[in-house]
């Protein structure tokens, strides 16, 4: 708008100037000038012709007055033209010329008046002269005395007349008059007297007229016609020359102005070209943006970086910046987590520092520089002294243009163009373009990030699914083995309890069986733990004592001595032990293991290397080693059961799997960071609780024995029913066993009050333990029911407890456990 107005003003001014100059450059009217010159010439020529003709007419050589009339007419015509000569002249010059013209006109008027008189008189004079010349011939007297006198007088008269015409002085006139009078007085005859009378009349007319005609001619020649004409000519030509000179000056000015206009038009044209070029460049850049944008959609993730760098370079080139940078930065995080940079060739200044970027991001005294959502500092040198200017100057920045990069309402970074040598001239268009480019680049960068995260998530999901599958399989197998082991251990215990006939040898065998069974149970325990099928009862656990207990020989820093979590202290110890064992094995006995315990609070969900953490408060147990690190493949598989990097026979491949199982069961997650050659850090996050509890590791007192109470024992495995009956009997109870839940319920219905407690397996055909419990409680709600189970996740525990089950025992049953449980519910 401003430009258009300025352009119009300049054009109008130039037009005015040109018009003014064109008017002033117009010289005196050429046609009029020609006519004036012609008239001046005509005046002089005709005046000369008039004088010549008058003299000729006076001499009798010219007897036609048409030329005189013609000359006068021409003079009058010339006067008419001369009266127009002063047109266009300045007033004073005009008055001067007009005065001269009127002088000439007066002269012409005088001449005309004289010529008119001259014509009339000269006609008479010439007529009389002709008569006189002719008459002196015919008037020849014929004979007689008079003849001599007349002849003599005629001679005298002729001579006198000749003298008079040659020199018309008064004496000569008197001579003629006297002679005429003498002739008239001579006595003559009639015919002669007529002639003499005529001679007398014409003679007198000549004497009377000739001097006056001569006088008229003299006066005519004395009219200052030529002088006045020349004076007029001089005045006129002088003015004309001055006017022409001035017109020439203005013509030159006009030429200069026209030249200036032409140059201006050229300048405008060049600017138009430049604008067109800029526009074209911009269109090209927009096309490029569109193309890059489209390309980014299909670009493989690993090429996005190159695409962003390329786009940044094109942007920097197009905007004539010296540097173009993308700083990836999240407002809730410190520092930068990504940076793309472009530098114009020949610019060796480092990119703007993170401090400057932060300063811009928080808008440090830059509020005045905001333009259309972007931040523009056209010239740092003209900024007020302040922190922002200090930042810019420290980074050699002469001008700055940046746009925040936002994605889905979050700020993810900053796209900044800077110049280091001269202030950049960025227009509103450029700013719009920068924003557009920023959006395209942001989209690409964010897509890359999201895709990476998604890929990682998918990998973890796969891992989790695999672990889950392996866990399910292992859990199923372990359950079976557990039942088998239950029978072995039960029978073994009974064999040991019973007096053996063939003495020590058999007993030794049984004892070995029992030891092997114990080891097998430990393995199965671990598998069940991993598969999260172990029944747990959780209670508040103080982590530090538990961990410390587990690591008493290890150097550890426990910075959260009061951290509490819900869980199983044994399992907690197991985590520490397994991680430390793992670390020790990894270092092959040389190096340092650090154990840290602290608490963290997460405001947002956080993705870890092996799992996802919801926002909340966590106990973080970290075990760091200085070992060789973990490669990517191992990283992916290390929590799978039976996956081991150790030599055959040195590890079970269950240590980390167990840790994972325990952590998962506690709703925690694991984060592993490993630097090859530098070491590995395992971080275990477990949900923190505020509850307080008793110390870990104090065993309860031994339960009191039974006093013959009747226990209803139900298990679909008849072997286990037998073992159980014997175990209960040994503990002082009377056991009634069933290997079929339906039969057991029928017996209970027959006499509900017969039983003091029910001990039932959960997983059975026809009717599960909980269903049985519900059926029995319908008859006797107060009846305590203890459930035995090989699996028992926390959820299942809740379910069975809600079904009215008083307690849950984990298979395989051990008499001590049973004793404690029965004592709890019967005493």
């Amino acid at each position: 708008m401003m430009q258009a107005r300025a352009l119009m003003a300049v054009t109008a001014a130039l037009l005015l100037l040109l018009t003014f100059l064109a008017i002033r450059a117009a010289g005196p009217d050429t046609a009029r000038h020609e006519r004036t010159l012609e008239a001046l010439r005509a005046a002089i020529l005709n005046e000369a012709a008039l004088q010549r003709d008058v003299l000729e007419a006076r001499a009798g050589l010219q007897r036609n007055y048409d030329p005189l009339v013609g000359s006068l007419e021409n003079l009058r015509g010339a006067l008419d033209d001369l009266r127009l000569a002063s047109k266009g002249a300045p007033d004073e010059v005009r008055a001067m010329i007009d005065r001269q013209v009127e002088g000439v006109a007066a002269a012409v008027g005088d001449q005309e008046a004289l010529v008119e008189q001259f014509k009339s008189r000269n006609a008479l004079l010439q007529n009389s002269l002709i008569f006189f010349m002719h008459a002196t011939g015919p008037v020849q007297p014929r004979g007689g005395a008079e003849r001599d006198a007349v002849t003599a007088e005629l001679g005298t008269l002729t001579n006198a007349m000749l003298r008079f015409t040659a020199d018309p002085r008064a004496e000569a006139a008197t001579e003629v008059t006297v002679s005429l009078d003498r002739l008239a007085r001579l006595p003559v005859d009639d015919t002669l007297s007529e002639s003499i009378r005529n001679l007398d009349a014409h003679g007198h007319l000549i004497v009377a007229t000739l001097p006056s005609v001569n006088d008229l001619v003299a006066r005519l020649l004395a009219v200052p016609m030529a002088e006045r004409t020349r004076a007029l000519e001089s005045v006129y030509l002088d003015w004309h020359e001055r006017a022409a000179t001035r017109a020439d000056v203005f013509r030159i000015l006009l030429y200069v102005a026209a030249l200036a206009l032409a140059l201006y038009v050229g300048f405008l044209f060049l600017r138009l070209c430049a604008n067109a070029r800029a526009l074209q460049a911009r269109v090209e850049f927009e096309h490029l943006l569109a193309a890059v944008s489209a390309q980014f959609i299909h670009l493989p993730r690993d090429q996005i970086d190159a695409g962003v760098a390329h786009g940044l370079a094109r942007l920097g080139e197009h905007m004539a910046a010296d540097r173009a940078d993308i700083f990836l930065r999240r407002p809730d995080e410190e520092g930068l987590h990504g940076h793309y940079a472009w530098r114009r060739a020949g610019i060796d200044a480092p990119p703007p520092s993170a401090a400057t970027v932060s300063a811009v991001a928080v808008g440090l005294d830059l509020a005045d520089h905001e333009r259309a959502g972007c931040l523009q500092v056209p010239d740092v040198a003209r900024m007020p002294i302040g922190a922002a200017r200090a930042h810019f100057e420290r980074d050699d920045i002469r001008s700055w243009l940046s746009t925040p990069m936002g994605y889905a309402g979050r700020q993810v970074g900053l796209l900044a163009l800077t110049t280091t040598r001269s202030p950049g001239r960025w227009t509103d268009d450029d700013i719009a373009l920068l924003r557009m480019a920023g959006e395209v680049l942001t989209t690409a960068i964010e897509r890359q990030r999201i895709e990476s995260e998604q890929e990682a998530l998918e990998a973890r999901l796969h891992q989790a699914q695999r672990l889950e599958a392996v866990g399910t399989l292992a859990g199923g197998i372990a359950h079976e083995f557990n039942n088998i082991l239950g029978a072995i251990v039960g029978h073994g215990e009974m064999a040991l309890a019973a007096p053996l006939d063939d003495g020590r040898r058999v007993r030794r065998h049984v004892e070995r069986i029992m030891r092997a069974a114990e080891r097998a149970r430990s393995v199965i325990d671990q598998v069940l733990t991993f598969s999260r099928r172990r029944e747990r009862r959780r209670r508040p656990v103080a982590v530090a004592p538990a961990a410390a207990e587990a690591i008493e020989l290890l150097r550890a820093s426990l910075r959260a001595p009061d951290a509490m979590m819900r869980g199983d202290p044994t399992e907690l110890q197991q985590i520490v032990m397994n991680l430390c064992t793992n670390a020790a094995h990894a270092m092959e006995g040389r190096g340092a293991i650090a154990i840290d315990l602290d608490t963290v609070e997460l405001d947002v969900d956080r993705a870890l290397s092996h799992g996802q953490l919801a926002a909340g408060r966590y106990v973080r147990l970290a075990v760091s080693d200085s070992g060789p690190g973990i490669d990517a493949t191992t990283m992916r598989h290390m929590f799978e059961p039976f996956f081991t990097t150790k030599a055959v026979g040195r590890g079970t491949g269950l240590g980390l799997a167990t840790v994972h199982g325990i952590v998962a069961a506690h709703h925690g997650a694991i984060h592993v960071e490993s630097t090859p050659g530098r070491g590995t850090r395992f971080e275990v996050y477990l949900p923190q609780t505020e509850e307080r509890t008793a110390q870990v590791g104090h065993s309860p007192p031994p339960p009191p024995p039974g006093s013959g109470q009747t226990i209803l024992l139900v298990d679909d495995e008849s072997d286990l029913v037998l073992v159980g009956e014997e175990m209960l009997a040994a503990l002082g109870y009377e056991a009634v066993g069933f290997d079929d839940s339906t039969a057991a319920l029928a017996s209970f219905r027959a006499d509900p009050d017969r039983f003091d407690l029910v001990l039932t397996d959960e997983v059975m055909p026809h009717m599960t333990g909980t269903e049985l419990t519900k059926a029995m409680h319908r008859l006797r709600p107060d009846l305590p029911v203890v459930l035995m189970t090989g699996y028992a996740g926390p959820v299942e525990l809740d379910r069975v407890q809600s079904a009215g089950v008083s307690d849950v025992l984990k298979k395989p049953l051990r008499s001590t456990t049973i004793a404690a449980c029965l004592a709890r519910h019967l005493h």
Partner: protein
Amino acid sequence: MARFRQDGTRSRGVTSIGMLSIRAGLTILTCAIVMGGAPAQPHQEEPITPVQLPERLDAAKVRLGEQLFRDPRLSGGNVIACSGCHRLEADGADGQALSAGIDGRPLEFNTPTIFNAATSFRLNWRGNFRTLEEENDSVLLNPRIMNTSWKELVAKLRADRDYAKEFAAIYGGGAERASVLDALATFQRSLVTPDARFDKWLRGEPNALSPDEERGYRLFAAYGCIACHQGRNVGGNLFQKFGIFRDPFSRRTESAADLGRFALTGDAADRHVFRVPSLRNVAATAPYFHDGSTASLDQAVRIMARNQLGRELPDADVTLIVRFLDTLTGEYQGRSLAPSDRSPR
């Protein structure tokens, strides 16, 4: 020549032959002129020159002017046209001593012929107008002659569709004073009567005049008539006093008209001074003098000789001079102005 010049490949020799043949042609032509020259010699030294039709007159203006000239609407009350007195089919005048004015009473001066009026240096008997436009303007507004006003006249002309068309075509507008006067004057400038036998004689036709007529011309010159009656109009180019040697007004009461230019200038020297009238068509334009007082040309010649030259002419000389004057009658549009009974042919 042009053909050779255009074709530059021709040889120099051919060009020279062409030059030679042209020179030969020029020589033959020159010989022919020299041989036939004597009888065709024009009389260039005479004080009288032939009158010629004006060149470059706008034909449309002439036509319109004639229309106006013949249109009685140019007079107040549409009484009379210009041509009412200046009868173009006759001698350009009305043959009366004094024409009757619009009021029926005679006008002051004899109506001069309109033919060749344009060639005179002043107009009317007293030469009181320099241009035809001035003269026409005066006559139109003169209450005793045309008795009109420009307002009336222009209104009448504008009301006429044909005139409106003509004026628009020629002057680019409606009729007005300037255009009406211009059209009238242009027409009047075309009223020239060339090809009088004397003119033919002047141009070199020896047989255009009879010996008597030529003798009459010599007398006309010798007596001094030619001192005033010279030029292309045989007069009409100077003023002269009527009555140099005798007083023609001595036997009567002088009228205002008799005073001549004195009535206009008040200068005593102008008493009885008139514009010398043209003698072209003089044989056809009786009666004579400013008051039309003389019907006979013989008589007029005698009066002029007596008063202006102080001579009493012999009858024979008068006859010869009149014979000469008769040869000054020219033609208008191919028609001789001479009354048929006088025509010598």
